[in-house]
């Protein structure tokens, strides 16, 4: 997260500098916030395509539900818990300082930071949403929707808001060296580099996903029956939207339209592609085929790894991080079968592994030539940055895992977290939402007026692919020429 230029800290408001708003920065951050928001619907597609057809709506609704709920909580008290003045030891922002975003509508742009505070509020809001939505992949197809929403509210409050304060809230001083705002411990006391959220977002979501997967247990039939993705084109579209949004996530985290943002953009761009190639090569060598799901997963693994590092490494370092992340994540996704936990959509294999690669990788691959200005082990900086990275990563991993396990356990023991086995067999979409994603049956009602034949022709690829004249099928059946 950018160290300077954070307009919200204009504690003493100076009327005479109101004209100094930086329109370029403001436009870029508002745009970035919208890009990052789009990542959550993108994640809904990415995850939705990976589950079975009977669970696609619930999978997508977990993301949309988190989006709706966290938006409101962020405005009420989330921003204040994350970016309010520290209440002690760098652990938590003051929850009442900006309660309901009070006092933040005034134009606080000053010469110290030409960015309206509300732009920063909006940009950080969407980080809280995507982080929480990521967890849903670990408990696909089996969580009660109401319990998920309760979990979202508790988790984002107890786990995300404080950790965002640790990682993203920087201590600020005014021109005279007087401290005007005290931030969180990882960013300021420890001095770990986490530009856009390798710890707060990805290690956090990955550890939480592992904990919830253990609390809820495996899906019925896990490891035995085939649970293949039902719609890989949806997964590819989702990966594309995540990729697009990630430029706001990483380059926007410069909190300015400047050189740091441009470096972050290029590093993000190349790391995703390098990781995609890494994953595909592993698959080709191990399984004999490079798959579309592997390509999409590799892109995300690379984006995860470069997230903490995109201001600290050079483009060659970004390629190295991407390749390593793509390879390790491709190898890691198989481990759940060996250890017997049903992290259904590989939140651990992709986000925890990628987050650790990126966060700890900064300790090796950081170079003082990059905007963050720190040398890692490989660039002659010794182990000084490396240990800070390791401590930051492990602290978030342990706290997130333990806290999430307890929250999940309490929900399971009180209101119940899992749907029944029968409901799981019937499909969570019909049981929980009273809907189905697709109209597969001609007898289910609501089909087109083309009759059974038209419905069959429209829905099933085999008939459509069987020749060039598939549009004649509905006409023929309505004329009564069927046997």
């Amino acid at each position, binding site marked *: 997260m950018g160290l300077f230029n954070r307009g919200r800290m204009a504690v003493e408001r100076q009327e005479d500098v109101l004209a100094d708003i930086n329109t370029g920065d403001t436009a870029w951050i508002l745009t970035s916030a919208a890009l990052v928001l789009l990542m959550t619907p993108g994640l809904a597609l990415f995850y939705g395509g990976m589950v079975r057809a009977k669970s696609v709506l619930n999978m997508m609704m977990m993301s949309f539900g988190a989006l709706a709920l966290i938006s409101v909580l962020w405005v009420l008290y989330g921003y204040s818990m994350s970016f309010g003045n520290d209440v002690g030891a760098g652990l938590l922002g003051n929850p009442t300082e900006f309660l309901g975003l009070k006092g933040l509508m005034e134009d606080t742009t000053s010469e110290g930071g030409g960015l309206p505070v509300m732009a920063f509020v909006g940009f950080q809001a969407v980080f809280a949403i995507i982080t929480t939505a990521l967890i849903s992949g670990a408990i696909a197809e089996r969580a009660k929707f109401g319990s998920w929403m309760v979990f979202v509210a508790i988790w984002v409050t107890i786990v995300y808001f404080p950790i965002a304060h640790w990682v993203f809230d920087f201590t600020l001083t005014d021109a005279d060296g007087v401290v005007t705002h005290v931030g969180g411990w990882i960013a300021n006391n420890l001095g770990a580099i986490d530009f856009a959220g390798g710890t707060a977002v990805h290690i956090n979501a990955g550890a939480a996903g592992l904990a919830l997967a253990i609390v809820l247990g495996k899906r019925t039939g896990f490891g035995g029956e085939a649970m*293949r993705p039902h719609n890989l084109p949806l997964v590819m579209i989702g990966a594309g939207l995540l990729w697009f949004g990630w430029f706001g996530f990483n380059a926007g985290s410069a909190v300015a339209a400047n050189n740091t943002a441009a470096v972050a953009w290029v590093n993000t761009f190349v790391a995703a592609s390098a990781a995609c190639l890494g994953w595909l090569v592993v698959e080709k060598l191990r399984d004999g085929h490079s798959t579309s799901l592997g390509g999409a997963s590799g892109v995300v693994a690379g984006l995860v790894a470069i997230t903490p590092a995109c201001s600290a490494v050079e483009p060659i370092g970004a390629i190295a991080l991407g390749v390593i992340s793509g390879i390790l994540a491709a190898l890691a996704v198989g481990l759940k079968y060996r250890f017997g936990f049903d992290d259904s959509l*590989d939140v651990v294999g992709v986000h925890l592994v990628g987050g650790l690669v990126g966060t700890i990788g900064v300790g090796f691959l950081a170079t003082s030539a990059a905007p963050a200005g720190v040398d890692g082990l490989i660039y002659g900086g010794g182990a000084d940055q490396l240990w800070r990275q390791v401590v930051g990563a492990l602290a978030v991993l342990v706290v997130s895992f333990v806290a999430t396990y307890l929250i999940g356990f309490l929900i399971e023991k009180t209101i119940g977290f899992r749907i029944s086995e029968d409901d799981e067999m019937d499909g969570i979409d019909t049981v929980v939402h009273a809907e189905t994603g697709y109209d597969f049956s001609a007898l289910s009602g609501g089909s087109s007026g083309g009759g059974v034949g038209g419905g069959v022709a429209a829905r099933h690829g*085999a008939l459509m*692919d069987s020749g060039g004249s598939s549009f004649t099928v509905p006409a023929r059946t309505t004329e009564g020429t*069927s046997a």
Partner: protein
Amino acid sequence: MKLVTAVIKPFKLEDVKTALELHGVEGLTVTEVQGFGRQRGHTEVYRGAEYQVDFVPKVKIEVLVSAERCPAVVEALVEAARTGQIGDGKVWVTPVEELARVRTGERGPDAL
């Protein structure tokens, strides 16, 4: 009256339909089905996890024909559906006891 039933490769449906029309067949019913013969299935891989797919998509065609026309129809169907590869499918014929056209109530061969 005979019922000719065929299970064939989906992409052969159009060829078979054309061939049957040339032999005077005026209607048929098509169903998407799955199954296996000597061809067996195939293997798919998702994030390194292998899935054995035992059932292969096929198209089932049902045609009602008169007894005298039946051998020619079967012959045409088999010729049109053949690729020479394993998995081309099967064709079989069963006798039909009674037949009615829903619209007019016609019975027997008149309803063909």
